[in-house]
């Protein structure tokens, strides 16, 4: 193992997570990250990229994304258009083949980090369509009769919010890690990474309130890490005295995004 990930300045990684990352790097397999929203799945790839000093390529998956989009796009329309005006180079198909994110990662001269973000948003078949490409790290472009093969196998990080089940064949090829929701101690660490200085009192109150809300029985959308960070920012700007935080939960709208949840919380507060 010549590369190891130890977390980075701006990202607090648990020991298990670091192990998983290093296993994935050493075995040259994609690392599949699952976890509650707001546990820093996407941030992880950035942190790895920073820690290892490698370029990060992000492929954001949307519900309409097709596997093909990540490989290459053959711009037929442009070619057709060009041909009508007799532009130069129309007979050169390669000019109209544009590599997607995966293709970009493969053809890079240096090893890169490829983040396939929220893979579960795409169609059910999407992961299956990428099996060969992720396994062999190569694909073939019939239009140009060219094979794009990874010069340096990229480190692949895949995130999923578990909205869809991923196919078994796909899962078999991945290293899996589930990010647990950080406990109060870890959360303190995370907050300290984001803020240069938080008053000890405020921090204590914030965490107490935060975990109290998360623990409430019928909260529908539990606040997560990113929300608590926004909340601290709001509290700092608002200049709320620390003793009032737990008592009144100011700026509750930053923490809770549903009206019902705010009502529920207020009910328990009394």
């Amino acid at each position, binding site marked *: 193992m010549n590369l190891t990930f130890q977390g980075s300045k701006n990202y607090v990684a648990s020991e298990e997570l670091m*192990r998983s990352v290093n296993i994935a790097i050493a075995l040259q397999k994609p690392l599949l990250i699952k976890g509650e929203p707001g546990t820093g799945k996407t941030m992880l790839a950035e942190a790895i990229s920073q820690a290892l000093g490698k370029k990060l390529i992000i492929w954001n998956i949307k519900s309409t994304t097709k596997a093909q989009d990540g490989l290459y796009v053959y711009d037929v329309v442009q070619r057709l258009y060009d041909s009508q005006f007799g532009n130069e180079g129309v007979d050169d198909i390669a000019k109209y083949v544009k590599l997607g994110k995966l293709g970009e990662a493969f053809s890079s001269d240096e090893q890169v980090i490829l983040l396939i973000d929220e893979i579960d948003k795409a169609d059910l078949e999407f992961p299956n369509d990428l099996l060969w490409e992720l396994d062999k790290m190569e694909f073939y472009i019939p239009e140009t009769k060219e094979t794009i093969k990874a010069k340096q196998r990229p480190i692949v990080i895949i995130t999923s919010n578990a909205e869809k089940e991923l196919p078994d064949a796909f899962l078999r090829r*991945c*290293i899996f890690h589930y990010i647990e929701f950080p406990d109060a101690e870890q959360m303190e660490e995370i907050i300290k990474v984001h803020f240069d200085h938080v008053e000890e009192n405020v921090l204590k109150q914030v965490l107490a309130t935060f975990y109290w809300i998360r623990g409430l029985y019928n909260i529908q959308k539990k606040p997560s890490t990113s929300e608590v960070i926004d909340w601290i920012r709001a509290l700092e700007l608002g200049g709320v005295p620390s003793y009032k935080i737990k008592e009144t939960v100011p700026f509750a709208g930053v923490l809770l995004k549903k009206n019902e949840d705010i009502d529920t919380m207020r009910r328990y507060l009394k």
Partner: protein
Amino acid sequence: MFTSFFYLLRARGLKVSLNEWMSLMEALDKGLHQSSFTGFYYLCRAILVKSEADFDKFDGAFLEYFKDMERASDELPKELLDWLNKPREELDGSFSEEDLLRNMGLPEDVIQQMFLERLKEQQEQHNGGSKWIGTRGASPFGNNGQIDKGIRVGGESKKKSAFQVAGERKFRDFREDNVLDTRQFQMAFRRLRQFSARADEARTEFDIDGTIRETCDNAGSLKVVYDKPRRNTVKVLLLMDSGGSMDYYSRMCSALFQAVRNSNHFKDLQVFYFHNCIYSKIFKDPRMRPASAIPTEWILQNISSEYKVIIVGDAQMDPYELMEGSWYSYGARDKTPGIEWLRRFKEKYPHIVWLNPSERPYWGGWWAKTYDILAKEFDMYRLTLDDLNNALKKLMVSR
């Protein structure tokens, strides 16, 4: 290499494939476990387990297989690796329980014993299914008195030994055979889809890519291509038991209801309510006000048989409510016994399942009686993730 662990995992219901096993071997060759038992645990888990729902099963199997190792230090000594190389059966002679016990100091011995017992007990309790409310607990060792006896498994230090980590079994709540919450429901309902592209549907959707391709092939003169639209064709009829003995499950049922409601991928969704059993009137409103009543007959006539029907109820009532006529319920009085109405539904709708939030009442009597009758009449499933998935699968296939 210790292949029996592989088979144990499979026997415990983990879908570990040979590919993954080979990867693990490769990883061990590369020394990725960093010569520590804890490292070995995480390595196995990262490679072999692909869902947090399976973490608990894995932890259980890991404990079962490596339970003799608990006393070993975290450093993975050479003998240990050799030990791993040998199947477990051969080992029992040389590594006997007796030796182990002798090696242990007595107090620790007792504690260790308690620890194992505790684990076992929890497992049984869990398998018993018991109360769905009960499963919302925190980590198993966090919330009971065992801690002050000396086994602090609730994660104090950052470095936990593999045995401790596995022993925590804190992914218990993720097990798929546990009872569910809204999000999990919703996920499950995503299974309920059938794209029209697979069915015979007219090609009505303009296919841009196809048109361009064809037009190009056609030397530039326009050739329009249409494709089959990909739409979900599933229609759902949800019939929910409301009130009475169902109040106990109201939280779960409302989660189920919301999940179905939010699954906006259905072509159509109809929801009706009944109390205990379906009679001549059925209600549009969960409070079952007379004003919201409509004749059950109307449903049978107007809601076509292609709807997939999900009945949610505990199937527990007084036998005469089910078997005899003239039962008066929420303004609905009629001579046809409830079971007859239910059979009419079953006859009309080929895709019908019964979801039951409750277990079969073990104290028998009436409640178990109607439960049994209905379980025989319908494909009845419990409201757990596994079972719900089975139920939805059942809905998707024609019998």
